[in-house]
């Protein structure tokens, strides 16, 4: 096969590394973005992978850009397939503008491949397992990263394990670097990309990290969960930092135990978090209702993945909004958040804990696999602005847990803190918390619980409006689609259109209504098959969505796809 002619990539590069699970791809995934960032580039990375531990075909996209981007694109500028299956896996995304690097013979390629002897070089460096380090070197070289930066970082990364392995990998990376440099010199590829001085101040975080940090920063001190992709990353993150923060992180026997532990913990004064995915959350439904009845706060993070049932465990979707909105028998208030950015995740976690505690209700944070497993840069973020207030009282002798207060919120005492005793009851109950069949009291207690939803406007998170004030079309989205929709609209030049990201999905902030009223045409973008936010807008505010842009194959929206579909919708 022939080498392609020179490719020049400007301002925005998408590198995709693909290969079977367990073949070192996760090493490349980790190293390349971090080295490029050290070199001063804006970097973003996102992975898609199969529900298996070894084999199959996974891929990671690393976007490097002159701009601050953090979204998935379909196009591939540079593809590094680690085996033939990987190349096939990415085939649809390969165009004549794609540079495929690798060993043609090994890849069984029908496409033109720029011959780069990763494996041969690895063998020379000491063994096949160094192929990933070679690839790291090659890719970094294309971006003109200084050679020492690469080898030093590689050494630093492996250093933790064993110095000899670190040295070998650094050597392999160095050899790979030479291969990449040669490509540049030969003029096969040239990358023209602006560096960005602010990168060094930024933090490079996964969505999971942000949720975990956000929880700690909101005073979370108790975590009870059962592993379930894609939410396990949050559990792992918090477990890793458990000791440092003196918090409890317990893997429960099942999700039902997890949610009931969390309620026990809140009852005793802790601030508990449960992290799960749709199927696990489904099992917590009764516990959610218990939170509603006990008026014991609860925060649950739900990392969405495609359902129903087991579905596609490692893929992404936004189809559990209705699940969390209506989970639990009987009627009681709740709050639902869905962050669109890392900073948003930090804020949302704080709001979820605050609202849950202040209003004594369950609060849910909805993310998805795409959000949790992607790494993006975040500008410095002041965490201290999120004050943690524990809405607790020291009890007096005659303390009544469910004292009928004007606003429905009875001061919350906890056992062992004060003179009183604290009784909470899942039956309908008296002000003291004892089982009761007084049917007039029943009505008052229902009114008390439901009355709490008239939130202080300060406690509802406003949506994010972006675009010209004089818009005709409004593109509405929630959760992880924020940045992709924004980038698509920027690419489309806005054209009389604006966007609204609903970060608190329930209850809606008053501004949602205000903005919707102005729109002539409402377009909703959702990663599901039935348009759950559109339904909620109809139900809560009476708005009919004119066009729904939906996707439910397990992948997130790409920017190109949104440019095309939104473009058509606003044409």
């Amino acid at each position, binding site marked *: 096969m022939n080498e392609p002619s020179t490719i020049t990539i400007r301002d925005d590069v998408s590198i995709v590394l693909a290969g079977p699970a367990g073949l070192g791809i996760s090493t490349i995934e980790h190293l390349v973005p971090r080295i490029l960032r050290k070199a001063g580039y804006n970097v973003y990375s996102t992975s898609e992978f199969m529900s298996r531990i070894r084999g199959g075909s996974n891929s990671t996209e690393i976007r490097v850009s002159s701009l601050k981007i953090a979204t998935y694109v379909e196009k591939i500028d540079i593809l590094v397939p680690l085996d033939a299956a990987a190349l096939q896996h990415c085939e649809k995304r390969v165009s004549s503008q794609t540079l495929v690097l690798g060993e043609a013979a090994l890849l069984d390629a029908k496409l033109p491949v720029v011959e780069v002897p990763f494996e041969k070089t690895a063998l020379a460096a000491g063994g096949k397992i160094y192929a990933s380090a070679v690839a790291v070197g090659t890719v970094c070289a294309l971006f003109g990263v200084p050679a020492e930066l690469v080898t030093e970082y590689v050494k630093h990364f492996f250093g933790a394990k064993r110095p000899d392995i670190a040295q070998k990998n650094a050597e392999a990376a160095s050899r790979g670097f030479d291969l990449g440099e040669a490509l540049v010199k030969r003029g096969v590829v040239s990358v023209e990309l602006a560096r960005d001085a602010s990168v060094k101040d*930024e*933090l*490079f*975080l996964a969505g999971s*990290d942000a949720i975990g*940090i956000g929880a*700690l*920063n*909101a*005073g979370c*001190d*108790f975590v*009870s969960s059962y592993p379930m992709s894609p939410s396990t990353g949050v559990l792992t993150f918090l477990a890793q930092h*458990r000791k*440092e*923060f*003196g*918090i*409890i992180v*317990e893997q*429960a*026997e*099942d999700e*039902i*135990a*997890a949610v*009931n*532990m*969390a*309620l*026990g*913990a809140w*009852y*005793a*004064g*802790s601030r508990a978090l449960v992290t799960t995915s749709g199927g696990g959350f489904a099992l917590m439904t*009764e*516990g959610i209702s*218990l939170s509603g009845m*006990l008026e014991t706060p609860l925060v649950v993070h739900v990392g969405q993945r495609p359902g129903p049932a087991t579905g596609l465990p490692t893929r992404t979707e936004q189809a559990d909004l209705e699940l969390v909105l209506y989970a639990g028998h009987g009627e009681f208030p709740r709050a639902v958040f869905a962050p669109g950015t890392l900073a948003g995740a930090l804020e949302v976690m704080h709001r979820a804990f605050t609202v849950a505690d202040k209003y004594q209700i369950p609060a849910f944070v909805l993310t998805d696999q795409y959000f949790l497993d992607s790494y993006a840069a*975040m500008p410095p*973020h002041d*965490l*201290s602005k999120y004050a*943690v207030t*524990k809405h607790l009282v020291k009890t007096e002798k005659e303390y009544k847990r469910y004292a009928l207060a004007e606003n429905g919120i009875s001061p919350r005492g*906890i*056992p*062992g803190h*004060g003179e*009183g*005793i*604290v*009784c*909470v*009851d*899942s*039956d309908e109950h008296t002000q003291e918390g*004892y*089982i009761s069949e007084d049917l007039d009291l029943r009505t008052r207690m229902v009114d008390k619980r439901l009355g709490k939803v008239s939130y202080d406007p300060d406690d509802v998170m406003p949506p994010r409006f972006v675009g010209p004030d004089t818009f005709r079309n409004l593109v509405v989205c929630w959760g992880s689609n924020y940045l992709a929709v924004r980038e698509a609209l920027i690419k489309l030049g806005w054209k009389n259109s604006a966007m609204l990201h609903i970060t608190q999905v329930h209850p809606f902030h008053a501004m949602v209504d205000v903005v919707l009223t102005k729109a002539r045409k409402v377009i909703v973008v959702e990663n599901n098959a039935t348009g759950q936010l559109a339904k909620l807008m109809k139900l809560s505010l009476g708005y009919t969505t004119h066009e729904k842009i939906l996707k439910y194959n397990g992948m997130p929206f790409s920017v190109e796809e949104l440019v095309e579909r939104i473009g058509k919708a606003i044409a």
Partner: protein
Amino acid sequence: MDTSAFDKQNLDIAWCPGCGNFSILDALKQAVAELGIAPQNLVVACGIGQAPKTPHYFNTNMFNGLHGRALPAATAIKASNPSLTVIAEGGDGDMYGEGGNHFIHTVRRNPDIAHIVHDNMVYGLTKGQASPTSKRGFVTPVQVDGVILEPFNPLAVALALDASFVARAFAGDIPQTVEILKKAILHKGYALVDVFQPCVTYNKVNTFKWFKDNTYYLDETHDPSNRVKAFELAIKTDAYPLGILYVNNSRVPFEEACGAFGEDKRPLFERDVDKKKVAELMERVGKS
């Protein structure tokens, strides 16, 4: 013993006259009174059924949660604030049926709680269906031709999982039950007390008399450190042993082992988040 600290006034108790639950309530009040526990420091977590109504009838903190789910709540309460005395209380259906999974895993987790199960071998509150401990042949409106499942054996299962304290009591004998409950509460770690409790309304087979006739107390010759021997006793069905079958003092309670109460002994609610530490962590993670 003066139990007045735990007494409540004007009670409308929902149990049937003659129900074994009254004795368990009395025994429990007496046990906590004799141990000198303050009501403010006692928490009873319970589920749904007749048995879990117990904490409604005396002066104590109460977490009356869902049917079958008292144990996870109790575990978390104790772990959140280890200075509290925590009891999980419920019926045989509640704890061994709906809550069976929590039972086995709480035994493994070993929080320092006393676990009191009112074992009347029937579902009382829902009007007389079989419970996991109902004997074979027990006829009910649902088990029309009698129970066909092997009865659940809570003591044997607890022993299989090396529970740190395994006992059985009989509601018909308050003084002995008080003694057993006191030991269970004092025991450091998970302590199971399965209490034989006559249900005068729905269990006409396992009556006061039946329990009296079919039980005996273990005496000093019994060695509670012998797990195999305890198992042998636990699976006997000709006469059911009462008393403490097994104690394993080598197990560390969950809240001690979980790592949150190393240097800092304060309950979690008294601690404040160290924002600087969080910021440092974010910096470390984000710039690695």
